[in-house]
């Protein structure tokens, strides 16, 4: 009986840990979901924008201490949120000068909608960002210091790491905010329309280039926020993007291409699988477990959990 009780506690603990880390993954996936799921742009540098968000938060909070006046609790959270606009600006500029050459109305008629060129270009950007990060930031693993990461809330026998729990709550708020922006506001709908059909969007008076740039900045910015939140409970170095980018793509596809809430669920599922797999599998097999679940879900539901099917006209 005692044995069963402790199994149950282990299970609940792993579930809670998966949920909390999954929230941050969910937010990362939402950012990629805008770019890959909605705009159908392949961005292999997405993980590196997350890395930039982590360093932005780090320098705002610990490095330069701009946010030190907010104290050790609010400071790191504000740092994560402010990483958003910083990464947004970087993404906006990269889109304006590089990525717009291989995306949007210019290439819809090109072979595979310009995806080949996008893969090469964004892989190049990924390498530049990761190596540039190495030169600028060094290779020593860092993390955003907050007392939250050493404290826990106890719910019965289950411990919730406070940094992760706060990250989870912020991630849910950001993802929900973004969802409401894209589905309820005119500008948000215009971004979706410009992604769906650039030509028709131009005919109704949407400035398509601007819309694409905004959407791209928003996508990487949101992932930057997720990076900043994640940095409170996870150490990072300039190459961390590579570890995350494939998982993010899995999350977006799992949730269903084009669905923002789906991308969040996709990321959440990945967090849950990753943490709960440790109950029965060795630690090294976490990522294998993720992809086994991924393949199973895609086998039964190729359109993803929340994907809706329509013919492209």
């Amino acid at each position, binding site marked *: 009986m005692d044995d069963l009780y402790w199994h149950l506690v282990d299970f609940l603990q792993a579930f809670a840990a998966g949920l909390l880390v999954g929230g941050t993954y969910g937010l990362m996936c939402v950012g990629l979901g805008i770019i890959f799921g*909605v705009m159908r742009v392949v961005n292999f540098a997405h993980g590196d924008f997350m890395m930039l968000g982590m360093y932005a938060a780090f320098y705002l909070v610990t490095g330069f201490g701009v946010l030190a006046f907010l104290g050790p609790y609010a400071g790191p959270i504000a740092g994560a949120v402010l990483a958003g606009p910083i990464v947004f600006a970087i993404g906006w500029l990269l889109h304006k000068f590089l990525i717009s050459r291989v995306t949007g109305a210019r290439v819809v008629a090109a072979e595979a909608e310009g995806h080949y060129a996008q893969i090469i270009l964004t892989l190049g950007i990924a390498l530049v960002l990761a190596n540039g990060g190495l030169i600028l930031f060094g290779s020593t693993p860092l993390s955003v210091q907050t007392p939250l990461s050493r404290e826990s809330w106890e719910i019965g026998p289950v411990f919730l790491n406070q940094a992760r729990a706060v990250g989870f709550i912020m991630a849910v708020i950001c993802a929900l905010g973004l969802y409401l922006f894209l589905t309820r506001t*005119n500008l948000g*709908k*215009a971004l*979706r*329309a410009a992604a*769906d*059909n650039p*030509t*028709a*969007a*131009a*005919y*109704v*008076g*949407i*400035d*398509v280039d601007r819309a694409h740039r905004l959407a791209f900045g928003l996508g990487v910015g949101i992932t930057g926020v997720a990076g900043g939140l994640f940095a409170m409970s996870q150490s990072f170095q300039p190459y961390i993007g590579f570890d995350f980018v494939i998982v993010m793509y899995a999350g977006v596809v799992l949730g269903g291409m*084009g669905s923002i809430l789906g991308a969040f669920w996709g990321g959440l599922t990945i967090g849950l699988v990753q943490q709960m797999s440790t109950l029965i599998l060795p630690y090294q097999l976490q990522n294998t477990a993720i992809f086994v679940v991924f393949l199973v879900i895609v086998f039964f539901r190729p359109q993803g959990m929340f994907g*809706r099917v*329509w*013919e*492209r*006209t």
Partner: protein
Amino acid sequence: MLKIRSLEVAYGGLHALNGVSLEVERGEFVAVVGPNGAGKTTLFKTISGIVTPLAGAITYMERDLLAVAPAERAQLGIAHVPEGRQVFASMTVMENLEMGAYTRKGQQRWSETLPMILALFPILAERRAQLAGTLSGGEQQMLAIGRGLASAPELLMLDEPSMGLAPAIVDAIFERIHHIHRNGLTILLVEQRVAEALETCDRGYVLETGRVAMEGTHKTLMADERVRRAYLGM
């Protein structure tokens, strides 16, 4: 209202329009007919700013339209209902109409235009929450026209609204277009269905390999021997 002078357009080295001139007066219903590849869609794309001409001039309501950015042209009251419908497939019927009303005027007039559009095409009211990509071809065409009307335009440009539709649906759509025109909207229509187009229009142009081969009122064109033989099969 719309004056086009000696428009030259080329894709790469290939000329699609060779000195096309055309006029639309306020309140008129003008049809442009012609065979495949004549340059009809190119003409529309040039008016909307998707294609930039080599030479020629377009004035719209006394303004040099070529100096206006493409996204701003919708703001001036030009609504383009493109060939092949081009609805926002991943968005709902309602969202498509809302995007039609993206212009300032569309926003201001939304409370009047929406009921008007839904009265014109009741099926859109029934399907308001459905994804546009899952509508039938005829429904998509009605949505594309509704989206054009949602901007509360001065000039409605329709590119082959009959494309790929069954004859009964084509008749219904032409009847609706006629109705929209009777309510005072200026219409520029491109069609391959010459008989239907010439029957409903006030004036028409026959475009052949990038040139205006003939122009005239509805009556002169319908009576013209060449038009009757080449396009009306009489």
